[in-house]
């Protein structure tokens, strides 16, 4: 079944700018990458981080600053944002990784709140107004990112690279140990695995790719703002992941697509959107607990057996 998904993903991905509004497609890819990065942690390592907005938004600010104020190439901007997220991920990870379950979630939340505070207070972020008007510029000097189709394919390439890294990580010797840790941590420890180090590496990879997503977002929207570092952003990515199906490779992509589309399509209904989103959650949690992709996989499995 995964084969079908791969074909679908790449096919739709390549055709997208001719099918839908390119900015929408790019936004979707950005959040899909964010959700996939998050899923590496939640779905495959069993760690619920409630502070991923710090990586996403933090990277967005750094990228924006590097491009707008330091006038660097967009690619350098994205790399700078990604690197920042990686370092931040290492710091968060070092502080939080020894904690379990809800404590882990809360300590990442607290750290992310501190990043939020910094984003509000530091002079270069533009405070409440955010970092606006980030120029798209020319990547590597020749790819004109102001051309909607060109920028779309750049974003698609970034997404695919990120997605492949995640795929590889899950299906690697390293991923095998992550699964073992999730299954029975004390036993993994007693077999001589340094559980903390495995979790930390997974955390850093996840943070880094979340950063890549945020960095890319700031170029697409030419914008980095407090929304990107707000705890609700951390919440949103949890939702995307769960809706699509945590611990499934393609689930987060589907989840991101659903959430983003919903936000987009329902934008004119005011508070009723909130009510609708709330109701969808309730229904999903009660009925589609495995997420869309998870449920689909189960159905197909049930049929084949």
């Amino acid at each position: 079944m995964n084969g079908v998904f791969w074909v679908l993903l790449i096919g739709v991905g390549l055709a997208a700018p001719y099918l839908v509004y390119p900015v929408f497609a790019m936004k979707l890819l950005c959040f899909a990458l964010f959700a996939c990065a998050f899923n590496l942690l939640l779905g495959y390592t069993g760690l619920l981080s409630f502070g991923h907005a710090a990586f996403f938004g933090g990277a967005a600010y750094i990228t924006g600053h590097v491009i707008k104020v330091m006038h660097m190439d967009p690619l350098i901007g994205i790399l700078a944002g990604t690197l920042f997220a990686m370092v931040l991920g290492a710091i968060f990870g070092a502080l939080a990784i020894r904690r379990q379950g809800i404590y882990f979630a809360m300590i990442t939340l607290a750290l992310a709140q501190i990043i939020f505070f910094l984003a509000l207070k530091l002079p270069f972020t533009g405070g409440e107004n955010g970092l606006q008007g980030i120029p798209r510029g020319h990547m590597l000097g020749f790819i004109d990112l102001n051309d909607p189709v060109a920028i779309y394919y750049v974003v698609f390439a970034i997404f695919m690279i990120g997605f492949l890294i995640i795929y590889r990580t899950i299906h690697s010797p390293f991923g095998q140990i992550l699964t073992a840790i999730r299954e029975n941590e004390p036993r993994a420890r007693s077999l001589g695995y340094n559980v903390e180090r495995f979790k930390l590496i997974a955390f850093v990879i996840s943070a880094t790719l979340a950063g890549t997503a945020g960095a890319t977002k700031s170029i697409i929207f030419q914008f980095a703002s407090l929304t990107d570092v707000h705890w609700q952003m951390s919440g949103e990515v949890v939702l995307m992941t769960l809706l699509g199906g945590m611990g499934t490779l393609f689930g987060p992509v589907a989840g991101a697509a659903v959430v983003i589309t919903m936000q987009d399509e329902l934008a004119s209904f005011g508070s009723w959107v909130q009510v609708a989103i709330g109701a969808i959650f309730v229904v999903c949690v009660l009925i589609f607990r495995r997420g869309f992709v998870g449920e689909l996989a189960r159905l197909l499995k049930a049929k084949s057996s």
Partner: protein
Amino acid sequence: MSDAILQARGLSKKFAGFTAVDNMDLDVERGSIHALIGPNGAGKTTVFNMLTRFIASTSGSIVYDGTDITRHSPTAVANRGMVRSFQISAIFPHLSVLDNVRVALQQHLGLSYHFWRSSRVLESLNDRAMALLEEVGLAEFADVISVELAYGRKRALEIATTLALDPRLMLLDEPTQGMSSEDVGKVTALIQQVSAKRTILMVEHNLKVVESLADKITVLNRGEILAEGPYAEVSRDPAVRQAYMGTEDV
């Protein structure tokens, strides 16, 4: 002087005002099967936890194979070849039986941090894993998801994963607990078999098992050593009979 693979000196553990293990010395001889017995709450599991560094000792020192490991992490201890089992069965429930063993074997491959490699590199471990399963009689269950195994087989699987690390010292906490007598016999034989090239330290309440396996027995009572020696000797000790074995014969 005898050749001790593990030496503990003055080992103590205090829990908030309660002394679980009190100034205990323990020598485990290389190549032997050593049993730790004693009444409930005597501190056996606590000793195990301290030796494998799962909990920190309040005082005392532990020397394993010539190295002082008193401050090492549980991981470091395991990597030096001192591996434990748990009082409750410890497997990776949703992995297949084969994968359970492979996870342990992978430890020696040195690729475990390689998140950029395909997991296909692990297929080289299959033969070794099957051999181990063969050894504990689980070869035919290799593809079964391990939760689905019966209790006794889970214990066997656990022993197989422990063996995969090629440990020099195995610590087994009540390996036969909860098994029917049929399985007890099998596991006893298994322990006997794997002890050939290894040292084993075990906690066990089943005196039959202890009698048939142990070269040396340490009886713990209220955190202190009550008696030490071979089974025949210890089982005649009136203090041991009173504190542990009771009046009747087993």
